[in-house]
């Protein structure tokens, strides 16, 4: 009984000294950073369409390649990890997070050699995205196809 009382008291004291909850701040940061990434993407598409008169689909593809290039390069240079710890989902949910996970996994296991290091681990984190993406796309695609809904 005495111990339980002490635990309750301890929790009360601990709650008073806890750091202020950063959830709201995290959410706002993720919203703003993610929004800026989206804005940049659309900006690149519009610039490409304006200057080279290519179709919107091609411009979108080039924009994604540019984003992956920037994310991979900055991960390899080492400052993308710091940005991710600051901005979290703002950078992880766009395609930059996909490129970052591949490059950082490959870099982490580089010293174990080209086959069992880089080759075996490059999809360590991105693999789950590809696996569940394909399973879900196959599953929903089959449902759509069997229901007779032509695209």
């Amino acid at each position, binding site marked *: 009984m005495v111990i339980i009382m002490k635990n309750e008291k301890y929790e009360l004291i601990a709650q008073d000294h806890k750091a202020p909850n950063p959830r709201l701040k995290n959410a706002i940061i993720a919203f703003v950073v993610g929004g800026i990434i989206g804005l940049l993407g659309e900006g690149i598409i519009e610039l490409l369409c304006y200057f080279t008169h290519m179709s919107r689909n091609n411009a979108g593809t080039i924009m994604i390649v540019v984003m992956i290039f920037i994310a991979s390069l900055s991960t390899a240079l080492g400052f993308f990890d710091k940005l991710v710890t600051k901005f979290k989902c703002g950078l992880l949910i766009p395609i930059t997070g996909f490129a970052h996970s591949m490059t950082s996994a490959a870099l982490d296991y580089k010293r174990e050699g080209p086959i069992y290091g880089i080759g075996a681990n*490059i999809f360590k984190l991105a693999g789950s*995205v590809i696996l569940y993406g394909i399973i879900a796309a196959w599953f929903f695609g089959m449902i759509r*196809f069997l229901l007779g809904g032509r695209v």
Partner: protein
Amino acid sequence: MLLINSFLFCGTVCLIAQIILDNTKLTPGHVTSMFVVFGAFLDSFSFYDKIIKVVGGGALLPITSFGHSLIHGALAKANEYGILGILMGMFDLTATGITAAIIFSFIFTLLFKPKN
């Protein structure tokens, strides 16, 4: 207008992900996988195509668009070749992203040394 929509849409997706991440025990890996599945689900009835028309580039960037392009390519091929087309067209649209990510990360891994 597309610029503002892109900002709002991409920001909202990241916001939802951040809220899930902060309030549950799920890791970023769980959240990204969930979002890919959710994107594929949204496009199984062509809803994501409408979002892309309204939002533009901002809808192509979040990982949900990866699931969307997987199922979109699969269904487009399925129209031509029947049920085998779902297997044939799976990577049609995402090939650029995956190939670019593999090539860039491999080259940069060879060129740079890991920090720490």
